[in-house]
Each structure stands twice: as structure tokens, then as C-alpha cells.
């Protein structure tokens, strides 16, 4: 309960800040833009025409859910990659500001254990990112569902995978925020972890390109523990695009991501316990 109370307190702080309102407004504007500018002509479940700003964008008549797959895939990719990057930049300053001198002492003077403070902060930020991802993906699904009659939750699933990726990256950001108390370090670690994770997703293809020896082994060992951001991105795109994916493999991948985040949070706790406030 204490963890949830801390997360709720973080949400209150977040909504008091203008940039989260800006984020909400940006997602809303995008949805309004899609709702007003996209005109779809559906005949017996087939998409017979798609117009954007009055211009025809397709000359192909095909099953509407098949025709919308590229849109759903593009949505998934936007929610997964650029939106996650945007959240990294946006949330970098958040944890250091919550852990700034004065506030942290105040929080620790309350009947709150340190791990609850870290976990509450972490879950609060991750929950916020999930909220905006679900708002964007869910809103788009609803708009396209109303316009075409095809209601699918696949982009929402893809958005949840994007949240999983962000949750993993944010664990590193929080560790940097706690240990260095610097927004720049937090953003730097987030970006580094994000791009290293993208690279780690291609480790099996990249490793053979390196000359055999110590460098390849170091690369393989270092990337083995990193979250495979790009692999999960491909899964998100596949799910949104209607491709069959193995639930066991996706589950394993997500569990691995969460284990990595938990490991980093454990390191964060180890560092946090050392500090005197």
C-alpha cells in the first residue's frame, strides 16, 4: 500500500507539471488529427478507399483489417521507438527532482522504507508511461474501429510491450538518479541503455561480423544481459501487424526484461541503502 501511495503522490506531482500536460495534449491532438483527416470507405468489410486531407492514398481494395495492418504496425513502431525515446528525455529530470535535498529527507522521515520509496517512484513513472501509451494506442484503435467496424486491440498489446521496454530502461535511469542525483546522468544512462538494447537485439547477427577472440566474447557477454529492445520492438510490430507470434517466447522475453529491471532496482537499493540523508 505504501508503494502505491508513493506512486500516487508521484502522479500528483506529475500532473502539476506542465510537460505531462503537454504530452497528454500532443497525444490528444494526434488522435483528433487522425479522426478528422482520415476518411475511409468500407464496402462489405473491404477497404475501397482511404483519403487523407481529401487525397486518395490507396488504389487497392482489400479486407479492411489487412489494409489497416501497415497503419497498426506504424503505430506500434511509433509507440515503441520514438515514444519511448521521448519518455526517456521527458522523465530524466523527474526522479532526481523527487530525490532532491529536502524532499528526500522529508520522505524518509515518514514511515516509509527505502525500497518502498524506490519502488513507488519506479512504478509511478512506469505507470504514467503506460497510461499515455495506452491512451494513444487505445484512442487510435477506437477511432479506426468506429470508422471501419474493425475493432482490434493488437496496437494496445504493442503499446504494452513498449511500456515494458521503457520500464526496463527506466530502471537504469532511476539507478543513475539515485546514485548520481543528476538529470543528465539519468538521461545519459537511459539513452545508452536504450541504444545498447537495440544493438543487443541484433547480437546474434552482429557477433559473427566481429573477429573471433576476446572482443567478440566481451561483446557477447555484455549484450547477453542487456534487454533486447529491438527484438521486442519486432514482436510489437508483428503483433500489431497481425502476424502470429509465439506466446511462450514473448512471455520469456518480457520476463527477461522484468528480471533485468528488477536486478537494476536491486543494485539501486544497494546504493540507496549506503546513502546518508
Amino acid at each position, binding site marked *: 500500500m505504501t508503494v502505491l501511495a508513493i506512486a500516487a503522490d508521484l502522479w500528483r506531482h506529475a500532473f502539476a507539471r506542465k510537460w505531462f500536460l503537454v504530452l497528454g495534449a500532443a497525444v490528444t491532438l494526434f488522435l483528433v488529427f487522425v479522426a478528422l483527416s482520415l476518411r475511409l470507405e468500407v*464496402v*462489405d*468489410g*473491404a*477497404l*475501397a478507399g482511404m483519403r487523407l486531407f481529401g487525397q486518395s492514398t490507396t*488504389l*487497392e*481494395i*482489400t*479486407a*479492411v483489417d*489487412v489494409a489497416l495492418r501497415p497503419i497498426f504496425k506504424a503505430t506500434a513502431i511509433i509507440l515503441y521507438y520514438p515514444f519511448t525515446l521521448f519518455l526517456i528525455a521527458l522523465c530524466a529530470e523527474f526522479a532526481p527532482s523527487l530525490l532532491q535535498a529536502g524532499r528526500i529527507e522529508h520522505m524518509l522521515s515518514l514511515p516509509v522504507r527505502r525500497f518502498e520509496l524506490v519502488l513507488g517512484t519506479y512504478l509511478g513513472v512506469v505507470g504514467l508511461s503506460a497510461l499515455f501509451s495506452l491512451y494513444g494506442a487505445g484512442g487510435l484503435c477506437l477511432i479506426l474501429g468506429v470508422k471501419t467496424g474493425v475493432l482490434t486491440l493488437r496496437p494496445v498489446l504493442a503499446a504494452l510491450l513498449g511500456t515494458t521496454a521503457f520500464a526496463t530502461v527506466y530502471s537504469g535511469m532511476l539507478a543513475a538518479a539515485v546514485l548520481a542525483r543528476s538529470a543528465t546522468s539519468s538521461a545519459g544512462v537511459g539513452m545508452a541503455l536504450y541504444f545498447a538494447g537495440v544493438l543487443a*537485439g541484433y*547480437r*546474434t547477427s552482429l557477433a559473427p561480423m566481429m573477429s573471433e577472440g576476446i572482443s567478440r566474447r566481451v561483446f557477447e557477454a555484455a549484450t*547477453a*544481459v542487456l*534487454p*533486447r529492445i529491438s*527484438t521486442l520492438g519486432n*514482436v510489437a510490430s*508483428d503483433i500489431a501487424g497481425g*502476424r*502470429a*507470434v*509465439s506466446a511462450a*517466447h*514473448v512471455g*520469456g*522475453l*518480457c*520476463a*527477461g*526484461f*522484468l*528480471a*533485468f529491471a*528488477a*536486478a*537494476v532496482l*536491486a*543494485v539501486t*537499493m*544497494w546504493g540507496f*541503502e*549506503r546513502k*546518508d540523508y
Partner: protein
Amino acid sequence: MAGPYRRSRRWPWLVAALVLLSGGAWLMSRGERMPRPKEVQVTFPRHMSASDRERLRQRRRPPILAVPEQAEPGAVAQPAPPPRPRDPLLVAMPPTVDKVAMVVEANAIRHSPVGELLLDCFVGSPEDDELGRLRSKTGLDVFEDLDRVAVTDDAIFVSGRFERANWTELFPGMKEQTPGPSTRLWKREGKDGESALLWNDEMLVVSQKEAEVRAAADRLEGRAPPANSAIDEDDCYGEIYGVVASKAVASLFENSSPDVAAKLGSITEQVKLHVDATHDVGVVADARGNDAASALDLAKTLGGALALGRAAARAQGNDNLATFLDYASVHPSASGSFRVELALPLDYLKTLLMDCPGRKARSAGSK
């Protein structure tokens, strides 16, 4: 907090981190080897490719005989333009058909992934080698000697290498007629019409109607005036190509979609069909409507019918059919024509042919 107390509380976090990191690495290494479905590689034969053009060029032959022109008395004879080399198979085919004129590139399909799949399915076990027995009896290896098979309303045309064929075995009971300059003709005695024609040891024409065979011989030997073929040279691309009367196509939909069948039969006359089988199978059907508005209306109806069929297949749990229809699309144009594209992924065909006779025979033989 006192120092020793803090130290005793901190180390479990590091142990937990190490365990979680190792566990995460193991889980992710399993997840990254995710089996991904094979990409469907469909080439939709929408126009003649450079290789199709080269294939056509190599098949062209100059006419064997020119039709002698009868000059009027006193008129100055104009030099005739040199006869245009043409593909003999197209020359042999009738200029018009009521239902169908279709060419199958048998040899190309035989050596394609689809061909291998079909052979695997429909050719029996080595002990039951029907085709091998046919080869030793008639000298004809249907896998290697046949190049193309064409079908029209009343005749079948086969091109290939027939030098080693034993015609007495191939046409038992048929009597050879007086040969032409480059043709041999057989006719069944006591039965009306059934005839066969061999041209230059490279093309065979078989029909139940003697007139069809004789007309093909006339066209090949220049006794008939030059005329366009039922299939235009520019339409000779893909592994299967030709024209089908719209009414014949419409009859396929009469039970399932009577409105589509009625529109198809009334708005269009002919459908041009092209199939590519180099990887997964791509099918393209082009139709031209009587007027642009009706054609667009028909295109939308067809698109709707395909989408409904796909949704119904999905609802009934027929995933194979739904997968096949995933790749179906209709492309209307402003000029009143439209194109229907379908794809048959090889994996889909493999699933369909899972229990085909050849495999059954082989598996029964191996037990």
C-alpha cells in the same frame, strides 16, 4: 544508521541483482531465438519482364510457308513485307475462343518450388512408377520433354521435344494420314473426328474435332491468312497465362455469390490471367469493364466478397483459406479496368497437400 547494520542489510541486494541478471539473461536468450514465420515471396506478374521477353524472342520462328498472293492481271506486284517471326504455339492456336485459351509453362513449373511440391504429391512411390513405364513404352519423358501445354475450347497444344516419341504407342488405333510439308496427322478410325497433329517434331495438337486439328495445320503451314492468336504475344508472361471468358469465371461464383457472378458476366467479357510460380504463387487477373463506373462498382463488390469470404473463413476456423485470402486484393483503375491479385504461399499449399496420394503411397510403402 550504524555502519555494521547497513553492511549486513546491503549485500542481499547485490546477490538478488546477480541472480536476477543471470535469470534475465537466460530468459532473453531463449526469447531472442523466436521462430518467425517465413516471409511470403510473391511476384505478381503484372507485366512482361525482361526474361519473359527474351523467352518469347527465342521461341519466335519465321513462317514455314507464305500464302501465295494472287496478283491481278496487269497490276504491278508490290513487294510483300517480310513475314513477322512468331511463336508457333500462338500461331497454331485459334484466333478466337468462346471459353478459354490458356498456356501452362509445364517445364518451368516442373522446375519451380511448386512443381517440386506437386511432383512430391502426385507421383507415386518408386515401385509404382507409372510415368517411368510410360517413358519406356512411348519414349516420352513428360518431366523433361514437355515444354508448354496450351488448352483452348476444342484442342490441346503441347510443345516440346518429340523426336524419340513412339507414336504407334501414343496413338493406338489411330491411322496416320498423308503428311504435310512439316506435319504428320493421325485420325481415329471408326470414330468421328478425334485427331492429332505433329508439327516439326516440336508441337503436338490433339482434338476431338478433326477440323480444329486441320485448321491448326493450315495456320502453321501458312495456308490460312495470318491472324492474331487468342492470346496476344504481349500477354505471354508468367508460368500460366491466357484468357478466360467472363461467363466461365462467373459460373464459379454462381452458388456462393450470385450477385458477383451476374455482375461479372454482364460487365466484362474476358479475363486475362497470369500466374507466377517462381517462389510462392502469385495470381493476377485483369478485366476490362464496359464502362468505368460499372467496373469500379464490380471491383468494390469483388473486394467486398473476398473480405467477407476471409472473415467467414476465419470465423469458421478455416485458417488455411483465411491465410490465402489475406493476400487477396482488387486494384481498380480510372480507365474502367481492374485487377484482382491473389497469392498462394508455398506453406499454405504444403498444408493443403499434406495428405496427397503420392505421400500416402510412399508412407504406406515405407511401413
